């Protein structure tokens, strides 16, 4: 049972052994080409996308030994196609709303962050794919981005959502506030003054994210969870229509400045607890990072304080490197 939990869990983190032991990146990637108009940054994940309910639908099976049996290629292929079409619908809607530049950053670890079919993706988009990448789910963000959208997002652990999890953690709080993956990435984006305008996911995810980010963003409920791997779902076509319609509205409202970046008081006091389901070796691995400022407060609990949310991103990377090693 725990083994199962463990497997579902690391969806955001699948990767072969890679320890980013460095405190800061040693290689600074070049900036993405500057936008020729209003830029939308889209983070597509898979657990919260329309129709997906089961781990076999979002795993390619090549992410590591523990994932080998958790795929069914006849299912996986269909869902990466559906994913690509969801992203295209979002881009099409955003374009109608006035956006002219699109960055799509793979937010799902299946096939090592290479789920979208590049040949079928809207030709107006730049796609960030592969792993590792410096800020994982938000790699490529900068202040040229006009607005941030999360599609297919999932709820955090303990919430009754489809394949609910949050990176490598059972709990993750900043200044005492519990954040899910959308919340963490929204906080990092806020360092660049970028705000979240649209989130799609199941009903549990949207409810949780509203509690974190507030009610301003446009939430799209793609399905209603009736279990961790079962849901009442709308058709893919209907979900795409909702995404397109909402993305158009989101861009117009973002251009008007309706959304505010998700800011918390500095310094950020981060408290995190590694999953109870992890073996002790992972805890030891995190300990041996000797991450500057990372203070152990319990068996699997840590505290970290910083003024720069990007440091949280780098820390997450380092921890992921341990988990996936």
């Amino acid at each position: 049972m725990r083994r199962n939990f463990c497997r579902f869990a690391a969806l955001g983190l699948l990767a072969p052994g890679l320890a980013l032991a460095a405190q800061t990146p040693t290689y600074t990637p070049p900036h993405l080409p500057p936008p020729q108009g209003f830029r939308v940054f889209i983070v597509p994940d898979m657990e919260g996308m329309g129709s997906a309910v089961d781990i076999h639908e979002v795993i390619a099976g090549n992410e590591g030994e523990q994932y080998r049996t958790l795929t069914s290629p006849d299912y996986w292929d269909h869902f990466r196609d559906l994913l690509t079409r969801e992203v295209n619908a979002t881009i099409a809607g955003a374009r109608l709303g006035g956006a002219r530049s699109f960055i799509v950053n793979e937010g799902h670890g299946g096939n090592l962050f290479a789920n979208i079919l590049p040949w079928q993706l809207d030709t107006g988009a730049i796609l960030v794919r592969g792993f590792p990448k410096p800020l994982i789910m938000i790699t490529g963000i900068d202040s040229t981005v006009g607005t941030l959208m999360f599609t297919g997002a999932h709820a955090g652990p303990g919430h009754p959502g489809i394949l609910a999890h949050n990176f490598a953690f059972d709990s993750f709080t900043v200044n005492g506030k519990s954040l899910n993956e959308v919340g963490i990435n929204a906080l990092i984006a806020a360092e660049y003054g970028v705000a979240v305008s649209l989130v799609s996911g199941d009903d549990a995810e949207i409810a949780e994210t509203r509690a974190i980010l507030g009610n301003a963003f446009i939430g799209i409920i793609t399905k209603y969870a009736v279990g961790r791997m079962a849901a009442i779902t709308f058709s893919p076509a209907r979900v795409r229509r909702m995404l397109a319609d909402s993305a158009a509205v989101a861009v117009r409202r973002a251009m008007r400045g309706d959304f505010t970046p998700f800011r918390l008081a500095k310094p950020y006091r981060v408290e995190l607890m590694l999953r109870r389901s992890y073996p002790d070796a992972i805890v030891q691995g995190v300990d041996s990072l000797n991450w500057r400022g990372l203070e152990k407060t319990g068996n699997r609990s840590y505290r970290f304080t910083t003024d720069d949310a990007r440091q949280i991103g780098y820390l997450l990377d380092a921890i992921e490197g341990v988990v996936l090693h």
Partner: protein
Amino acid sequence: MSRPALRLLALGAVPALLAAQQPRQQSPAPRDTTPPEAYYGVTEYAAARQKLEALMQPRGFTVYIVADMEGLAAAVRNATEMRPGARGGHDPTHEAFRKELADEVNAAIVGARAAGATQFVVNEGHGGTLFRNIHPEDLDPEAILIRGYPKPNVMQTGLNPRVDAMFIIGAHANAGTPGIISHNYAFDSFTVNGVALNEAGITAFIGGEMGIPMALAAGDNVLTAETRSMLGPIETVTTKLAQSRSAAAVFPPATVQRRIRAAAARAVRRVRLGQLKPLRFERPYHVAFCLRATYQPWVAEATANLAGVQRVAEDSTGRCFTYRSEAAEAVGNLLNKVEWIVLKP
């Protein structure tokens, strides 16, 4: 890991047939009595029902379609046709039957819509792929699809009084009959107030208490005959003529789809005319069931521990039980609990 083997036991269809077809490997299935709640937080049935109810249009005519697979046109063999590649099926064949399932459900939707139905909820009813058989993009885009496992009250998830009629497509005959891949959940027999019910009958019973009639059943000749004898002269479509539990004279899929379209339209008209009545029993409901003889003994032990379940004292096999309830929904939940014992996620 041998857990997949255990799963298959439960997935309808499998055990007796496999036993007949190939020498059974008698490595004892590992005992996994973990309650499913510990695997996943499964939403309570009532909460799932409220979620669906809140999504539905209050007006119009709603059809709730249970989509099973054994009774599909041309389907005869579980091992290749109704299982994904990852679980030992044969990919292209399985894919073709997934498409056939969507086509038959869509035919029912088209027919029902022509007769005035306005809203469609499709509930995946076949466990071979853990209730993920229809390609979502193949289904009529206006339909709501309930998929995945575990889900509360497996074949009746979300069923609520706003539904006007129930259909079952791809249905199979009761356990112990000569129908194609005949079985009934985890049971060799299942009765309510002494009346034997097949899976279509159980759905009709649970929906019947809410006042919803089962209006259309499609499956092989054994299924259609037994369902009419259980539920009366509802609309039925015979998709094939069983020659054994794994051979049939099959009608062409296109013909079957055409017949389903026509029957679905008739079914909706007859419900609107009040000609089809919900299946109702006297309360309290006296449920009696025997687990499949092929199960390991621990399945019976775990079942005996379920709340409200009594072992039949005079039964020497120890796998027969009774259950008494005032609510059909509670019977559905019991079914679910038994399913969860044998069908781990």
